[in-house]
């Protein structure tokens, strides 16, 4: 990266030295007020473009920036460390997905959606990872805990914000589904008697 301007070079160094995603705000605070935030942003984008074809990428996660190895090299890094991160159980993933998309939500809602009890250990595992946390209590009898995702969830799942969750906009709400169910049934109502 010859010919890079001093600011970009400085930011690059800071990003490498940091062990967590650096937000533009944090960069600005360290660099000093005389640096315009627009310049910082331009430098970050320049770095992102520069690394886009390298083994290291500049990723935008949890509203910050972090150098990460490219996903396609995962196998070699795992070989290097001779370690694999533990697989997540389906129940943990489904519980996490429901919390991520419906937050804040309660355990009872999760259980109703999955049609099965959620074991306490699943909740504890997700909490220990920092992926979910109790965001309050629901104002219903029993005042159950409300769960939401934490910052670590964004960091670990390569998300810049919750809006980046895959296909969150296509998620149907309950009334949509009910409508679908009923309209399809109207079409099928003639066959119904034969299928039962």
């Amino acid at each position, binding site marked *: 990266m010859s010919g890079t301007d001093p600011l970009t070079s400085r930011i690059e160094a800071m990003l490498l030295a940091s062990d967590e995603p650096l937000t533009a705000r944090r960069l600005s605070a360290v660099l000093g007020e005389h640096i315009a935030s627009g310049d910082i942003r331009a430098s970050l984008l320049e770095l992102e473009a520069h690394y886009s074809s390298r083994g290291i990428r500049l990723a935008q996660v949890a509203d910050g920036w972090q150098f990460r190895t490219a996903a396609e090299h995962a196998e070699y890094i795992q070989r290097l460390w001779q370690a694999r991160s533990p697989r997540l159980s389906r129940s943990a993933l489904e519980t996490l997905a429901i919390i991520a998309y419906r937050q804040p939500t309660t355990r009872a809602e999760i259980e109703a959606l999955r049609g099965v009890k959620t074991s306490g250990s699943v909740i504890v595992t997700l909490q220990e990872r920092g992926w979910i946390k109790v965001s309050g209590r629901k104002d219903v009898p029993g005042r159950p805990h409300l769960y939401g995702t934490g910052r670590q969830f964004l960091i670990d*799942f*390569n998300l810049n914000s919750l809006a980046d969750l895959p296909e969150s906009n296509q998620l*149907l709400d309950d009334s949509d589904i009910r409508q679908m169910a009923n309209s399809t049934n109207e079409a099928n109502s003639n066959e119904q008697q034969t299928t039962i």
Partner: protein
Amino acid sequence: MQSTQAHLFPVAGDIRSGMPPVHLEQFEGPLDVLLHLIHSQQMDIFDIPIALLTRQYLELLEQQDDPRHQTQPSCEQKIRLDLDIAGDYLVMASTLAQLKSRMLLPRPQLDDEGNTIDPRAELAAQLITYEQYRLLAEQLNERPRLDRDVFARSIFPEAANVERPLPEGNLDALLLAFRRVLKRVGGEARHQIFVETMNVREQMRMLLARLTFGGLQLDEFLQDTPGREALVTTMLAILELWRQQNITVIQSSCYGPVTLLAKQGMQ
């Protein structure tokens, strides 16, 4: 299998599902099982053949029983699952059975607004909602994840043989921390020392000394003991000496005088 099934479902013409056997551990609950049955047979989720699905669902639960199939399976043996898990599956079984009966019974076909009423709509909605989250969970799992697919610098998994040196001791820091604790518990704690005016041991020695000259009446002995504290101490001394069998206490008659004797004096 045929016989077990026949017990719960005495259906003529026996519509066998022909489904390969599966284990409940593969599934995340009853909704997951139903989706599996629906998709593997390409059923329309909005037009589920409830009777067939119910039969297959129960069949699947029964499969979880001993694979060798007892000849006389009892009801309790049929569904021998972990009760915690089984509960959810059984609730679904009863929901299905209820749906089946509602489909068979005459019922209003239209609601107040003129829409078709289908008892299965709620189940269909529940299945679709669950299926969405199941899919979202899969997609979430496929995202490049930190420490699994992508790695950031300076977070290294710890090897088992990492030596973790103890931090350097620092007396000043320790004292400072201690002072802070003291301040928090409200000033320096002080021991209070009381002067003991009477001493049981002393009294025991005195009593033994006097008993060497012969027996002693308790009333007499206590007469010249001044004050409540001294009385208590003397009584304790007597009891202690008695316990250690250095003296004998004799009372010849009820409410009679109590005599103290040194053990040597008796011999």
